[in-house]
């Protein structure tokens, strides 16, 4: 592998904000983890379609939740066999533009919506339990956006600016990566009361450029996918910066496995505009120790099974059974890792 970092042509995202270059990961000589993708892991009823696969998460029973930009933004539940169970939140006021779904230890379902600037907590049956943030009013119609270069307004305790992801510590405190407009991580207590926040826009340690994903480990450390800065920033439970991992490309999303030995997965996703130059140097997912040591990687950019086209959601409740949602492929893949075969090539045949 080449040592040098390749800077790509600027990748323009949906809204032209933020601008950053998807980069080749600095880490070298990473073992490939053999894997399969389960064919047709999710069975959608007729006339029900996934759109952009934005968020995917499992609960303790193995049910799978998919938060998707379909015609409207929608939240679907599937059982552990992939059979469709139900839709949650039809026509919900807070569903405008999906960004993440995560399930907490009590199987509550949390949706993060970057269109409504809201985080919505559902109980396991789909009833709304709590809200953070507020959908902007549109009483007077549409308002033109600020001119290019306008600095973002100061972040407010209870106002989210295109939030991206959510996690919880063992006490139930809530951490939100916020987001495209704000550039911070916010901590609330379990009742949604603001505690503190950290971060402004920038590239210095502790600053952020599109904190795009977030996970919390068992000790309460907060891992932030600081995508535009091509690094993972690790904060302790009080949001004090503890470490920076800048060797795994541009992290789009993270997940952390449960259990006594936790692993961190991070996706150096193939950018959503599918630039040709990035195809060969992005698309892979890294498996890491919590201290940043890379254990292995898998996957590459592409549209076929076992290839990834802009991973946006990762679920790793089971260390070797990952759920991966992709933006531009409009799908969710169930990935079975075979780490014990790490030195052997494997076939690409799909299981099941």
């Amino acid at each position, binding site marked *: 592998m080449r040592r040098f970092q390749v800077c790509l042509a600027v990748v323009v995202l949906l809204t032209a904000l933020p601008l950053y270059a998807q980069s080749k990961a600095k880490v070298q000589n990473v073992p490939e983890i053999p894997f399969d993708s389960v064919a047709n892991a999710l069975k959608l009823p007729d006339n029900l379609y996934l759109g952009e696969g934005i968020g995917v998460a499992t609960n303790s029973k193995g049910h799978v939740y998919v938060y998707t930009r379909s015609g409207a933004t929608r939240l679907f539940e599937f059982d552990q066999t992939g059979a469709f169970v139900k839709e949650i939140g039809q026509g919900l006021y807070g569903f405008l533009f999906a960004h993440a779904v995560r399930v907490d230890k009590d199987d509550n379902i949390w949706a993060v919506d970057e269109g409504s600037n809201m985080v919505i907590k559902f109980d396991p049956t789909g009833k*709304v339990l709590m809200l953070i943030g507020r959908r902007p009013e549109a009483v007077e119609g549409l*308002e033109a956006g*600020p001119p290019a270069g306008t600095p973002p307004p100061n972040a*407010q305790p209870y106002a989210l600016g295109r939030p991206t992801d959510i996690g919880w510590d063992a006490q139930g405190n809530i951490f939100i990566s916020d987001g495209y407009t704000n550039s911070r991580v916010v901590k609330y207590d379990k009742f949604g009361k603001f505690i503190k926040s950290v971060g402004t826009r920038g590239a210095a340690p502790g600053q952020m450029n599109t904190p795009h994903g977030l996970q919390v480990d068992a000790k309460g450390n907060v891992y932030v996918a600081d995508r535009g800065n091509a690094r993972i920033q690790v904060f302790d439970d009080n949001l*004090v910066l503890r*470490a920076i991992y800048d*060797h795994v490309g541009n992290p789009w999303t993270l997940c952390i496995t449960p259990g006594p030995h936790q692993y961190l997965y991070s996706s150096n996703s193939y950018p959503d505009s599918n630039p040709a130059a990035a195809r060969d140097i992005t698309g892979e997912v890294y498996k890491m120790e919590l201290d940043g040591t890379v254990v292995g990687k898998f996957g590459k950019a592409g549209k076929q099974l076992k290839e990834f086209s802009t991973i946006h959601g990762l679920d790793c409740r089971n260390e070797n059974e990952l759920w991966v949602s992709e933006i531009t492929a409009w799908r969710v893949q169930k990935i079975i890792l075979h780490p014990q075969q790490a030195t052997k090539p494997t076939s690409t045949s799909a299981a099941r």
Partner: protein
Amino acid sequence: MKRILTLSFVALLILTAGHAISAQQQFGGAQLAVPEIPFDSVPNFLKLPDKMYLGEVPGVATNSKGHVFVYTRTGTMTATLGGSRVFTHDGSRLFEFDEKGAYVREIGVGIYGFLFAHVVRIDPQDNIWVVDEAANLVMKFDPNGRILMTIGRKPESINVRNYEPPAPPAGARAGGAPAGEGRGAGAGGAAGAGRGGPPPAPPVVGAGVEGESFNRPTDVGWDAQGNIFVSDGYGNSRVVKYDKNGVFLKMAGHRGAGPLEFNTPHGLAMDAQGNVYIADRGNNRVQVLDNELNFKTQYLNVGTPWTVCVSPGPHQYLFSSNSNAIGNFDNGEIYKMELDGKIVGRFGEGGKQMKQFGSVHEIDCRDPNGILVGELTNWRVQKLMLKAPTSSTQ
């Protein structure tokens, strides 16, 4: 590959700005002696069918049978592109529940005027009145849910407004509206620099036009004769009186802070004598007008009134909510008062848990000891059972 930072990073707390934006009063003038009214919140009072969700609940009201009507911002206001004009529909729904909280039905499915809910009120004949802030409409339904009358007219289309930089901190604005709940019609255009002659009279902001031209109306009430009173609203700053058939009679008020001036008259309630109680939110007061819209008095000691309610019966009480602003959970309590402004007690606080309030937007006090509150930011209705005040220290 990785860099461990021993740097102890000072968390950048951008806290205080949230308070600066809100003009919410931290406390009313005479609150220290106010007794607390103990209360319970009935768990899961409203039972919503599967696949049906409340959004923000600006409106809740009961009829004479105890049925509960909820006017909620739910679903998505849909904009249809039509060249330079954009046409809108949907965005709010009206649900009816029975006295036990069981779902009965939806009223006004797909109706032209449900864009951005503001309140629902029930008159003595159990007609259902809906005020929609974006449609600039007051809609009267009969008890069966058929349209009987409309006042105002929905704008034909909406346009894209130019970008407005964020407002300066609210400390610098006289009586600014609480953060996040829309913007008022600013303080008026500057008078032109006339040359010669007397300076032009300053424009009267928010007086509105005689008739039905609402600008983001907020609430509705009736006197014993059935005359209709509308608080109007965010854009206008006035109270309008119509007869029971919807014929314009008179109006009063414009933007300002003096008597008969308003800064977002956000709620309205009537007593049995036909007096009008206005939640003059931006001015942190309840203004009381007589039936002919003359100024009578004002109550300055109950924080920032978002909504008011007057209970029925021979001994009427006035409830007023010092709701927490959207951007914080300060305040949030509701005051129970005599009609003359004497405070009986207070209850509640801002927050997301049961017995806490997320920006109470309407109170129903048909039963003064079993009231309903609709909350904006908690997307729910709570039924509150009030008990006797713990102590009377007044």
